[in-house]
């Protein structure tokens, strides 16, 4: 009986649209939010380090001054939910003397021939062989090449 009374009370509760909308937004925008967040963490790390060694810029106000923007914008940026322009990221990197993003080297598309001392070889036609080849191992009868899918941009 008491549970029913509480249930009746809860049934009248307003829907928390704020969370639902924000959660949906975070889900839809996850890819760039991941990058924005990691950049914010990196900037926070450099500012903290600069504070310890008393280097400029060592806080949000000084970074805003160096960026010629408002402290409010820097505060927003440091939350990790700002859709940053590449120009802004590069400027921040220069001011903080740190690489915030990097693009992997171009991929080479060609046939690759591997010749082994055992006297046999195998030609592997690959669509994409790049510096992202993480591991390869050879055996007499087979060669295994493991490589990940291409990444266009990564956070340093």
């Amino acid at each position, binding site marked *: *009986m*008491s*549970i029913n*009374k*509480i*249930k009746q*009370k*809860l*049934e009248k*509760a*307003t*829907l*928390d649209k*704020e*969370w*639902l909308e*924000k*959660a*949906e937004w*975070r*889900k839809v925008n*996850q890819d760039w939010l991941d990058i924005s*967040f*990691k950049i*914010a*963490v*990196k900037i*926070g*790390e450099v500012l*903290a380090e600069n504070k310890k060694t008393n280097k400029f810029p060592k806080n949000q106000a000084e970074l805003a001054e160096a960026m010629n923007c408002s402290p409010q914008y820097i*505060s927003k940026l*440091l*939350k*990790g*939910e700002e859709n940053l322009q590449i120009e802004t990221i590069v400027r921040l990197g220069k001011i903080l003397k740190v690489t915030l993003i990097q693009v992997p080297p171009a991929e080479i598309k060609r046939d690759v021939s591997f010749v082994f001392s055992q006297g046999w070889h195998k030609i592997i036609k690959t669509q994409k062989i790049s510096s992202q080849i993480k591991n390869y191992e050879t055996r007499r009868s087979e060669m295994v090449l493991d490589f990940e899918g291409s990444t266009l941009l990564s956070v340093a």
Partner: protein
Amino acid sequence: MKIVDIFAVIDNTLYSVVFDVTQERSEFSRLFDFWNDAEQLRNFFEKNKEDLNDTYWEGITIEEAINKTREEAKDLERLLLSYAKGENPKENLSMLFKPLSNKVEKKYEKDKAKVSGKKTWLRLYAVRIDVNLFVVCGGAIKLRKTMNDRDYLKIELEKLDITQKYLRENDADELDFVEL
């Protein structure tokens, strides 16, 4: 601190209290914003660096801790969002919430929700009203084993008690309730 409202997060299943100190924002919404805010997280971990340095956390840095928190929050939010959108019709929140301790409090149990499988530290605290009916009253980045030796965890215990009392105070049949 007192409760000024209760919001529905998932109708008939998940609710969240609103405390007077959080400017009309539900605890649920406030927590996910906190766990997705790199600056607030840095402030938290800098303040609680000593707990983070515990050997249990294997020398994790503040930056790793911030990223780990957001990843956990992402997993938890996605899971709850799928429940909210009815994408998990065969599952319910009772499978997610676990008793906070061995102490069973009759009709109301203090529960926590966490992402299972890994060494996790995110917690959502709730009062269970029925089999699949929960009222969230707080949450934490739990860096300690117990909840009673740090202010940021003690306040969560207090919020659980406030919520429990709030629900009971509004119930004229409280004693009947205990007897069930």
